[in-house]
């Protein structure tokens, strides 16, 4: 079943035409990677799906329903979660409050917290600590956990390994694998080996357009075709 359909999306920042007709599909249960160089429109694609930067034209359908024209919180209410670049945890809220605020129904909070602390036992240890006092890796865990605790069916994950030490990246990859057990993932990742390891399929974006797509099983991280699009 197709969960997300992005069709001929054109998105602008002011006068700057960033997405020039992006089209892609994500099936339920898949992990799909969006790869490409910096500034080619990967993050903007995620923001366009969430309606944080609404497209000027084109269509974004989730479970067959049009999202363009809806507000971001309405998109989130439909089960689309966001694990953003640079984590963006609420630094003055405790770990537990960061998770509580992400659960749509207050009655579900105890069960959701129990479930997420089982997946991320480290976070349970810091539940009363302010998120701003956590390390970068711990904040990334919290960001992933926040996406999961919202009971989302689709998670839009943006550069989860950015700025993290290799050991922490491994832990984040494990966390994302755990997330993939529970939700469908559309993953933006510059770290090609990590992206290909996690994903079932990939799209390459260049200059605001999808230029390549395929199954990750058919390519390797040193594939010349991919390298061409990823090198500056």
């Amino acid at each position, binding site marked *: 079943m197709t969960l997300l359909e992005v069709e001929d999306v054109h998105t602008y920042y002011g006068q700057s035409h960033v997405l020039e007709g992006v089209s892609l599909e994500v099936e339920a249960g898949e992990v799909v990677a969006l790869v490409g160089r910096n500034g080619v429109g990967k993050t903007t694609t995620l923001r366009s799906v969430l309606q944080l930067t609404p497209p000027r034209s084109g269509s974004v359908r989730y479970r067959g329903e049009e999202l363009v024209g809806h507000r971001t919180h309405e998109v989130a209410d439909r089960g689309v979660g966001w694990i953003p670049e640079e984590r963006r945890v609420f630094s003055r809220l405790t770990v537990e409050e960061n998770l509580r*605020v992400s659960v749509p129904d207050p009655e579900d909070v105890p069960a959701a917290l129990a479930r997420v602390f089982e997946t991320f036992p480290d976070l349970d240890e810091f539940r009363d600590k302010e998120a701003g006092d956590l390390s970068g890796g711990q904040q990334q865990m919290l960001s992933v956990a926040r996406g999961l605790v919202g009971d989302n069916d689709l998670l839009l994950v943006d550069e989860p390994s950015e700025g993290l030490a290799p050991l922490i990246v491994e832990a984040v990859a494990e966390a994302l694998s755990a997330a993939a057990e529970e939700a469908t993932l559309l993953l933006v990742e510059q770290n090609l080996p990590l992206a290909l390891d996690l994903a079932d399929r990939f799209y390459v974006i260049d200059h605001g357009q999808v230029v390549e797509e395929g199954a990750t099983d058919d390519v390797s991280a040193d594939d010349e075709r991919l390298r061409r699009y990823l090198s500056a």
Partner: protein
Amino acid sequence: MMLASFLEALLQFLQPATLLGVFVDGLAKSAIFVTIAAGLTLIFGLMGVLNFAHGSLTMVGAYLGGLFMVLAVGEATGGTTRLLLFLVAIAVVFALLGSVGGAIEVGLIRPLYDRPPLYQILLTFGLTLVLDELVRIVTLFYDVQPRADWQAARGTKPAFLASGVQLGPVSVGPLEALQVALGVLTVVGIWAFLTRTRYGLYVRAGSEDDEMAEALGIDVRRVFTVVFALGTALAGAAGVLLMWDKNWGASVPLASETLLPAFVVVIVGGLGTFRGTVVAAVIVGMTDAVMTWWFVNHVEFTGLPELTVFLILVGVLVVRPQGLFGVEGVGGH
């Protein structure tokens, strides 16, 4: 000669009765400042809007509270009933100005969120001018003197609130005690709202990162409306508290007289932090009370105490520009 006079004044100040009296006066001032500034800081913390109309809304609250009391209180109304009616007036003005605040946010401020902050400043400043002139016209038309304190509203004060109550060596004004009680209630109420309710959690999350909060399913625009309404409701309730006060009263200049110290409190505490606002209100209120005692009793120059409040502002801005509890770059959307 001057030194001897100063030492004599200092000895008098250090008398327990004087110290306690000044302390109670400081507490009452702190309570007033925190009630007014709390709304201002909540609005700035979440929405990044510096609401210049806040003082005018306090002034409107004082007039509406006064109007309610003048209409509800007759000559034969007893003291306890008057006090109860006063509490009802606070609740009515709170609800009324809350609704007005909600309408202002939806109708006037919301269309400006995507524009630079200067637009919101100009809008709220313009709103101040409109509200002040509107009240001036109405009070002139109905022969309610706009420049002096509104005596008819003052006249509704129960007799037992006018005289001091002796608590040991200190004479405490019951109105001051009432102001302190309502100030404490405001602080506890807002603290409980922010830390114990789900909506408070939304406010705190939205204050830090409104885009992330929206992406988590929070209708941030609705939270903006609720917070703006709460802020203006608090401003109005503070106005009712000032209606009977001998130092304030319902008058058009009340708008600027309350806005300036409220801004000082918010900036000294750190823009957008409620904890900072509470601490700064106590610092500013206590300093004001101490300086008022000194200047009124020994220098006999009553204009200077207000200056010290602004000296605190200058001092904090020089040493710690983000305020006592402020975080650089935090506040607004």
